[in-house]
């Protein structure tokens, strides 16, 4: 076994940890930081349930090593709320019935957050394209796409910031 020392910021908190070199970022987040909202649905990079933001970009944490994430800033689904409440995206997901069993939900919230933070105007195709790397088995994507479009529509387009 090879141990690797990493220094990583997760949801605003800095951690210095020693990890086994073969530890995936997903296992690190789930088992060492206790952030079990990052889910493992396939462990081969297809389903998207394990998506997290590493330095602002979405990453499959099942295919990334914790050691690779040393020195980066990671945001997981647990860190995407609005203070103690739900973000506009999370609220819209609920309002549009964009989740049922909830297992894929963290990956969608993370991927859609990235999309909303990095684009001005969005149409149905843009949203489906950005979420095409995430699988939902329950909803048929209907409410998920509607929720993201609604948030995109209601925010101020110039800033990409959600409207109050």
């Amino acid at each position, binding site marked *: 076994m090879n141990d690797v020392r990493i220094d990583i910021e997760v949801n605003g908190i800095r951690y210095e940890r020693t990890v086994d070199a073969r530890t995936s970022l997903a296992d690190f987040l789930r088992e060492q930081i206790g952030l079990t909202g990052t889910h493992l649905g396939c462990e081969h990079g297809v389903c998207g349930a394990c998506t997290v933001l590493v330095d602002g970009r979405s990453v499959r944490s099942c295919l990334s090593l914790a050691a690779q994430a040393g020195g980066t800033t990671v945001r997981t689904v647990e860190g995407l709320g609005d203070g103690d409440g739900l973000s506009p995206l999370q609220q819209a*997901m609920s309002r549009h019935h964009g989740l*049922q069993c*909830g297992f894929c939900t963290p990956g969608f919230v993370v991927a859609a957050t990235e999309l909303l933070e990095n684009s001005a105007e969005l149409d149905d195709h843009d949203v489906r*394209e950005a*979420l095409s790397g995430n699988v939902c088995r329950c909803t048929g994507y209907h409410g998920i796409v509607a929720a993201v479009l609604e948030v995109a529509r209601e925010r101020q387009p110039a800033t990409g910031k959600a409207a109050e």
Partner: protein
Amino acid sequence: MTTSAPLMGATVPRREDERFLTGRGAFVADLTGPGTWHAVFVRSSYAAARIRAVETAAARRLPGVLAVLTGEDLAGRLGPLGSLHKPQPAFVEAFSFHSAEIDLPCLAIERVHYVGEPLAVVVAESRAIAEDAAELVDIAYERDEPVADARTALSATAPRVHPELPDNVAASLQAGFGDVDAARRRAAHVVRNTFRIGRHSGIPLECRGVLSRWDQARQRVEVWTSTQVPHFVRTAITTATGWPTHQVRVRTPDVGGGFGPKANVYAEEVVVAYLARLLNREVAWIEDRAEHFQATAQGRDQELEAELAVDSDGRILSWSVDYVVDVGAGSLWVAGIIANTALHLLGAYRIPHYRVSGRAVYTNKTIVAQYRGAGRPEACFALERSLDAAADAAGLPPEEIRRRNILRAEDLPHEVPLPYRDGVPITYDGADFGRCLDACLKLLPAETVTDLAADYPDLLLGHGISTYVEATGRGPYESGRARLLPGGTFEIAAGSASAGQSHETTFAQVAAQTLGVPFDAVRVRNGDTDAVAYGIGSFASRSAVVGGSAVYTACRRLRERGRELAAELLDVRPDDVDAVDGGFSSSDGRDIGWERLATELAPGGGLADHQPLDQTSTFSPPTVTWTMGAHAAVVGIDPGTGIVRVLRYAVAHEGGDEINPAVVEGQVRGGVAQGIGGTLLEEFAYSAEGQPQTTTFAEYLLPGTFEVPPTAVAHLHGPADLNPLGVKGVGESGTIAVYSTVAAAVEDAASSAAGRITTTPIRPSTVLALLTETEGEAS
């Protein structure tokens, strides 16, 4: 006190959402911790082989390994899993139903029957070490000849999957009514076809998983498992181990989708519970996706030979079907699956003469369970595809042949001269099936193809329709419990555990309205055999109907008992007290709220010598309640690749009252998405040797955001008199008719003759061949 707005029928936001949206759900893998020991199963590499030796010494020596057990080690200590469904005698007699008995040990002993069958288990301090140790278990196999195809398995010379049986027939049935042969002689058109629905399944995004520990203080095993059927799991554990029921508690954490494969019970659930007690440790097994493709029960895999005879007006004269279901190495649900096809083949139509025979067949492939629809999509595909072919033969549009045969208001309720699985004669308790067909065509008319042509200039567009029927809400019963908590709020529990179906919201709606209290005063506790002693589970579109009704009756009783206690407290007769919103009111104008009752029931209160307010009730429906619906699709074919895209979809269905319309729509839309997967993408493939060829999501394709179109849903109200809520099941409504609907639309897009597409998944190569054929005919 004022009357509050009704909760039943309202789109109440889901209670479950907040924790899932913020990553605070608690799925079984999330329950493991530093003290958890991890089990990994060693699985068969061959589809058919005898086990000569299992060498475990190297695995045992690996640091961090606690135990390695083989099938031999467990022989005599763990019995097999029992069948999960036995039809009632009246069904058995009417259908001449037979089934074979097999007893697969939890860990294989002498023989393996499919790739992925568990034959040893390793327990270690981490998952990684357990996986490393599992690699070190050395198995000496003597290979046998496998059979991976159901038709081959039926031949007299085929190798037997279970050598102790005389053949590979797992179950058989035959039945009918009228005189098919005489009716066919009067026919103007007879269409015959062989249809095939490929092997695919629910693929819940969360794989299975079990965590168990021995509670030394209470001398019992606690189990958390990702299942739709916690009470069945408890029965499986007690049956296999011989432990008394009170020594096993099974709970469901958050469950990441079920769809049928998790309405099965599995050897892993029994073995992990057994290991927790044997080792006196907390032991978890978390299935990974590679395992899921081999070890979790699969579905469908059916071939049907069908003959439909119609007169010159397109009216159905007779319908006869012989079918074969491939149940792999076995199915604890074989009776249910084979029966469902026979019972749903008549569809939504007047069919005067019917003959059906079916066989379930063992092959050396992964075990099979129910999957959303469970035998119904197969029946629907054969009938609806045959109707399209007959329409073509009779020169009628597809909607017209359906209009001429569909059961209308004057035909309903409609009695079928056969018993359902519960032994009760079948009655379609619907309102007007023709109405659904019309409503669906209104949502998505055939002219949509013309409207969309400009948007999709590179695609060939086509329209298809189908209808389906479904028996929902089957018994035999479900349990519900309601209890008053200190402070005047309520806890609700039901035997039908949620696997994502919104029970925390919908059961709370039922309970709050029945009790006459605010929604916020009610909380629902998910699957727990301690919460209700008996239960069945969430599958077969039954939770709202049977579980919801059990919650309703428990709440009714609780409210009635509360009224008696309020009367005692007020020193009046119960008849002088009315149940009102928030509590009770006497005829002389005095009010008692639930909070006051809770206080009076507590020590020191005026009712302290009474039993707590806690009611458990079971609801047993007299029989199933039938739903019906119509589906329509517009698809586009890329003529260069043969790839099919579903562009628009619509479902109009006849249900009962809706508890929560958004949940109903969500079930329908999600069902459509899974149906599209099974129709166009998903199939478990096997080599002739029974080796799985689809073991990742690169080979087994799932529908994504671009594969599932917007789906319009119309809910039409029909009678539902068999349960006090007036509801019908909806979980499978979205899935059943997708296969036939999309197939019809593809043929229309290809300008092909109807009834040419007989197999799903519909491959691009099939579509290209169809296009070439059509071009040939045109030129």
